[in-house]
């Protein structure tokens, strides 16, 4: 779905992404920070678990985009952000029927993330050895979302009436 969308709208997307980039670069530093933050992403990733499992992880002090955007150059970051942002917005407005049941990091995302792990953890992973597998998360499965959807509230008695509140889905 995602690929198809990209194909169909490549030009459109490029233009919009650039536009968004320009627009965004004009806004304040504070807005930029907000756009990287758990609070912002959480607006849509109401698949709560990505957020909740993140929030009780060892990385909860980070911004989502410390991992999810490339940090090599500011331009690359904005471009990626624009593209990702636009696809996300597309899915959440026009393309809601196409949203997958289980959101999975794309191959591209995985590469970006891996670079970010490496760059933060440069000192510990390069001093002797730490590169056994293709990606960091093949071992660090639970950093930072890997605890699955089963956050702590599953281990408590249910709240009466909660299912009723969720009756329309969440």
């Amino acid at each position, binding site marked *: 779905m995602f690929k198809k969308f990209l194909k169909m709208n490549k030009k459109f997307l490029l233009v919009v992404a650039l536009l968004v980039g320009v627009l965004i670069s004009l806004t304040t530093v504070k807005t930029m920070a907000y756009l990287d933050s758990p609070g912002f992403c959480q607006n849509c990733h*109401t*698949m709560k*678990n990505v957020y909740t499992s993140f929030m009780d992880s060892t990385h909860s002090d980070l911004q989502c985009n410390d991992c999810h955007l490339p940090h090599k150059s500011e331009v690359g970051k904005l471009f990626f952000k624009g593209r990702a942002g636009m696809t996300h917005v597309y899915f*959440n407005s026009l393309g*809601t*029927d196409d*949203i*997958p*049941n*289980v959101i*999975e990091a794309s191959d591209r995302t995985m590469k970006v993330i891996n670079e970010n792990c490496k760059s933060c953890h440069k000192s510990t992973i390069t001093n002797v050895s730490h590169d056994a597998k293709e990606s960091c*998360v*093949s071992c660090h*499965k639970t950093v930072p979302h*890997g605890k*699955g*959807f*089963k956050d702590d*509230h*599953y*281990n*408590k*008695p*249910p*709240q*009466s*009436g909660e*299912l*009723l*509140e*969720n*009756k*329309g*889905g*969440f």
Partner: protein
Amino acid sequence: SKDSSEKTASAAGAKTTGLSADEISNEAFKDLFPLQYNSYKKNEKMEDTTNGGSVKRSKFEADKEPLLPILFNGYAFATEYNEERGHTYALEDIRNVKRITDKSVGSCYTCKSTAVPQMIEEMGDDYWGANFNTEIWPKGEEMGHSPIGCSDCHDPKTMDLRVTRPSFYKALETKGVDTSNPTKNDMRSYVCGQCHVEYYFAADNSEVTFPWTKGFKPEEMYEYYKTIAKEKGFEKDWVSNISGTPMLKAQHPEYETHSSGTHGKANVSCADCHMPYERVDGKRKITSHWWTSPLKTMQTSCGQCHGDRDLDKLKDRVLEIQEANVSALHEAQDVSTSSHYYVNKMITSGVNEEKIKQAQEFVRQGQWFWDIVAAENSAGFHNPQGSMDSLRISSEASNKAIRLATEELVKKGVNMDELDQEIEKVKKAVLDEKDNEKKKDKAVNSYFPAQAPVVPTVLKK
């Protein structure tokens, strides 16, 4: 405590569905919860997977368990026994199955209909033993029963999950489980554990009872039947028509098997796999109410936790686990079959009673330990190691019967090669019979005459 006061608060008022606490019709929930209701309607779909799925097929077919008409001979399970399918068919299927006779009891109705909790409330312990055809079924129809439905798992007013079949908590308590404050995670398996469990009918009042006091493992349940159930007067489900053995019939122990297996031990619940969150109607997420093979919904069912794995490969892994299980099951059933016929021959050769009894005890064990695996519906996936262990114990026990019989038969001068050939012949006759209902009749012949007393008409399982 905070929890319980919150409970009271919401139960007391504010938010409820507006439905009556006694609502048992699924359709009453339709307009309030259209997404879940539509999802529930998917249970009508029928599609098979390699080892599971939802097509109503006889278990006697060649690629399933073709020796069953021999192994259950003398019992109604040798007449008709099908693969299970969606919850929506529960009433239709019990209504039509040949295992229901004029002597069947109310207990049979327990896991099929939304009317049950209320009936139990009204009738008390008389419910269990009441006549299925003349009393229970008509009463259920009159009450407007649905096949397994919302009210079986939800409180119709608050939609809170609840356990509606009393046997479940009763049995957990004998096992020492504190049932007063289950977690959300517990409830996501408890609602299934009301029905997807091994059970028997208590000797005194036919009450549905789960044999868990000693534990969930096949050997622990066997021990329960040998001691506790026996002391209370329950000795057998039926007598084998081949070996004259007083037998136990095992039934759908998904809850027990899962709880002792890979995922259960890791605190994964039934709903995690069989009721995954899914996105419907745009971006709304609901709990799927299509109880079916998770192999049809790998992405939502397994992807949530195994996102790091290639799901096609993960499916191959499941099939590999199942294939090992199914072929071991077939072998165990084959040895078990031989053990029945060896004992048949002991009887017709006039071997001493005591020896026959000993051999029958092994036949009974042999069958229990494969049946508890065969009756479980995941083809080994819910507990790969445990199921294989049970098949190992089965084979060991059946072989002990064979060893014992061999000694006595040879002493009586029986021609053992001929015996083995006759076993092959009779198996072939059963396999060759095309009419599933008549297969059982081919399991006895002049060489292997029927051994059971006249078939008991009250079906105990």
